[in-house]
C-alpha cells in the first residue's frame, strides 16, 4: 500500500516555482504581440507551463500531496544529496570567483586575466605555494596560446587592452 507522506517544503523549490510561474505568465502576455503564426508555440508552451507551475507550487507549499509515495520521498531524500545541500555562502563565493574571471576577461582580455586569476585562485583558494601557483598559471597561458594558434580560438579582448589578442593563428587543415 502506498504511504502518503511528503518531504517538507523546500524554499529553493518554492522560489523556483514562483520564478517559473512568473516567466510563463510574462511570456504568455508578451506573446500576444507576436504574429499569430509565431504565437502558437510559445503561447501553447506558456499556457501549459502556467498550469504546471501552479500545480508544482501547490505541491511545494503542501496544499497538494497527491502522487507522493514512500519511495518517492526516499528518492527525494536521497536526491537531496550533498551537492544539493551546498551552503549558499560557499556557492556564492565560488560563483563570485567566476564573476571575477569573467569581468577580468572583459576588462583585461583573456591573455592577461586568465593567468592572473589562476595564480590568485591557486594560491588563496587552493592553498598552493607561490611557485606552484605561478607555474600552473604559466602552463595554462602556454596551453591557451598553443590551442588558440592551432585551433583559431576566439579570445576575449579586454576594453582596456585594445591589442589584447596578439596570438598568431597557424593554419593546419583538419
Amino acid at each position: 500500500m502506498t504511504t502518503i507522506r511528503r518531504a517538507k517544503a523546500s524554499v529553493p523549490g518554492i522560489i523556483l516555482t514562483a520564478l517559473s510561474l512568473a516567466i510563463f505568465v510574462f511570456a504568455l502576455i508578451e506573446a500576444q504581440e507576436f504574429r499569430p503564426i509565431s504565437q502558437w508555440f510559445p503561447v501553447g508552451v506558456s499556457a501549459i507551463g502556467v498550469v504546471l507551475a501552479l500545480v508544482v507550487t501547490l505541491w511545494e507549499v503542501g496544499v497538494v500531496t497527491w502522487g507522493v509515495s514512500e519511495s518517492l520521498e526516499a528518492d527525494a531524500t536521497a536526491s537531496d544529496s550533498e551537492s544539493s545541500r551546498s551552503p549558499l555562502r560557499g556557492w556564492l563565493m565560488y560563483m563570485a570567483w567566476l564573476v571575477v574571471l569573467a569581468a577580468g576577461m572583459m576588462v583585461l582580455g583573456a591573455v592577461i586575466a586568465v593567468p592572473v586569476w589562476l595564480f590568485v585562485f591557486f594560491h588563496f583558494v587552493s592553498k598552493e605555494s607561490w611557485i606552484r601557483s605561478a607555474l600552473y598559471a604559466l602552463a595554462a597561458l602556454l596551453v591557451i596560446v598553443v590551442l588558440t594558434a592551432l585551433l583559431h580560438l576566439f579570445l576575449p579582448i579586454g576594453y582596456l587592452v585594445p591589442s589584447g589578442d596578439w596570438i598568431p593563428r597557424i593554419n593546419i587543415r583538419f
Partner: protein
Amino acid sequence: MLEAALAALAALIQPTNLLFLGLGVLVGLAAGLIPGLGGSVGLALLLPLVYGMDPVPAMAMMIGLLAVNNTSDTFPAVLLGVPGSAGGAATILDGHPLAKQGQAGRALGAAFTASMFGGIIGAIALFIVIPVAEPIVLAAGSPELFMLAIFGLSMVGILSRGRSPIAGILLGALGLLLSTLGSAPASPEYRYTFGIGYLVDGLPLVIVVMGMFAIPELIELIRRDRTISEIGATLTGGRFEGATDVFRHKWLVVRSSIIGVILGAIPGVGGSATTWIMYGLTSQSYRDKSKFGKGDIRGVIGPEAANNSTDAGHLLPTLLFGVPAGASMAVLLGGMVLLGVQPGPQLIQNDLPLLMTVAWSLALANILGTAICFLLRNRIAKLTVIRPGRLVPFLMVAMMIGAFQSTANLGDLIVLLVIGAFGWGVQRAGWPRAPFLIGFVLGPVSERYLHISIDLYGTEMLARPGVLVIGALTIAILVLGFIRPKALRTIQSPTPQGVGGPIRNLVRRVRQRFDLPVTESITVPANAESAEESGAQKPTATGSAASIDAAKDNER
C-alpha cells in the same frame, strides 16, 4: 547498406579522424573518472571545438567521448566505492569488496573487458537495427515526429528523479520556452529579444549546457576539494584474470548487453537504472548467489556490459527520430545541429554513411578505451588522487573560453553565469536538469514539425494513426506518473530492491513453479556517500534511495 558501412569505415580510419576519435576517448575517460563530470559536461567542453569541423571527425570525437565515459567510471567505483558516474554505482557492490580482498586488478580487468564487449555488441545492434528501422523512420511524417518529441520529453520529465513528480515536465516546458527566444522560424520577427542584439539568434546550446551542468558540478567539486581516492593505488596483477572471467561468463555479457540496448532505447531510462536492473537480474539468474554483494565477479561483469551497451540504445531514438534519450544525447544532438546534421529521417535518407560512422566509432572507441585502461591503469588510477583544487580551476577557465567560442561576444560569459546560477538553483531544489536541456534542444525542432504539420495536414494531423498511438502513450505515461509514481519510479529507482519489481515477481513465480530457491532481496546503502562511510562492506540501509549522482544520471 553494406556499401554505406564500408564507406563509413574507410572514412573513419583516416589518420585525422582517428586522432579526433582518440581525443574524444581521452576526454571521455577523464570525464568518467572524475565524479561530478560525466558525459554531458565533457561533451559540452568539447563542443566549442566542433564549430567548423567536418562531420566525420566531429562525430567520431563526440561518440568517442560518450562511448568510454562508462568505462573509466569503474576506477573510483572499485578503488574507493564511489562511482565516477551514476552508471557505475552498481559496480560498487561487488567491485569494491573485490578491491578490499586484494583483487582490484581482477575487478577492473573484468569491468574493462565487459565494457568493451558491451560497447561492441551495442554497435552491432546499431548496425542491425538501422536497416530494420529505416522503413519505420521514413514512414514517420512531421506530425509523428512532433508527437515523438513530446513523448520523449514527457518520458524524461516523468522518469527524472526529483522532489515533485512533475517538476521535470515543468522544467522541460521552461526549456521549450527558452528555445523560442530569438528569430521566429515561420515569420520575420524576433521573440523575447527586448531589443538586445545578442539575443537575436537565441541562446547558444553550449552555454546552456555548461551553465546548467558544468558550473554547478565544478563548484561542488571544488567546494568539497576532496581527493576521490586516498588509495595511492598501484594495481598489480589480475587484470587478465578478470578478462578471462568475462570469457568464462560470455553469455552473461551477451545477455546484459542486449538488455542494455533495449532499455537504453527508452527515453528517460538512464545508465543508472539499466545497471541496477542488470545487477538484479544477474544476481537472480544464478543458483549460487551467496557471494553477490561480497565480491562476486559476475556482479561486476553484468552491470558493466549493460552500462556500455546502453549508449547504443540511447543513440537509437536520438539518431533515428531526433528524440534524445537523456541529457548527454541532448548535447550530442545539439552538436550535430552545429555540424549542420539533422537527425531523423533526413539523416537516413541523405547521409547513411555518417550514421554508420557513429556505429563504427562506438565500436572502435570501446576497443581503444579498454586498451588504454588496460595499459595505463596505474597512471589512470593515480588521477583519482588529484585534488579538485588543482584540477577545477583549469576546467573553469576551459569552460569560460569554451563558452566564448559560441558567438565571440561578451554576452556569452554573462549568459553563462546567469544560467549557471539558475542551474544551481534547480540542483538545490532537487529538481532534475536533464528535461530542461532536452526541452531546449527539442524546441526548435518541435516547432518546425508543428508548423509543417499544420500547414500540410491542418487539424487532420490529430487523426493520423501514428499521432494517436504516440499521443496515447504520452498520456499514459503522464497519468502513470501522477497516479502510480512508485510503479513508474521503480524503473528509475537505482536499487535492485526497487528496480524491476515486476521482473523479480515473475522470476519468483517461475522459481516457485519449478521448486527453485526463491531469491532474497538485496539492500544497498542509501547513497554512495554512505557507501563511502561504510566502506561498502555491508549494506546499511534499505529503501529505494539513490546512490551518489543517481539523480544526475538522467542529467547525463
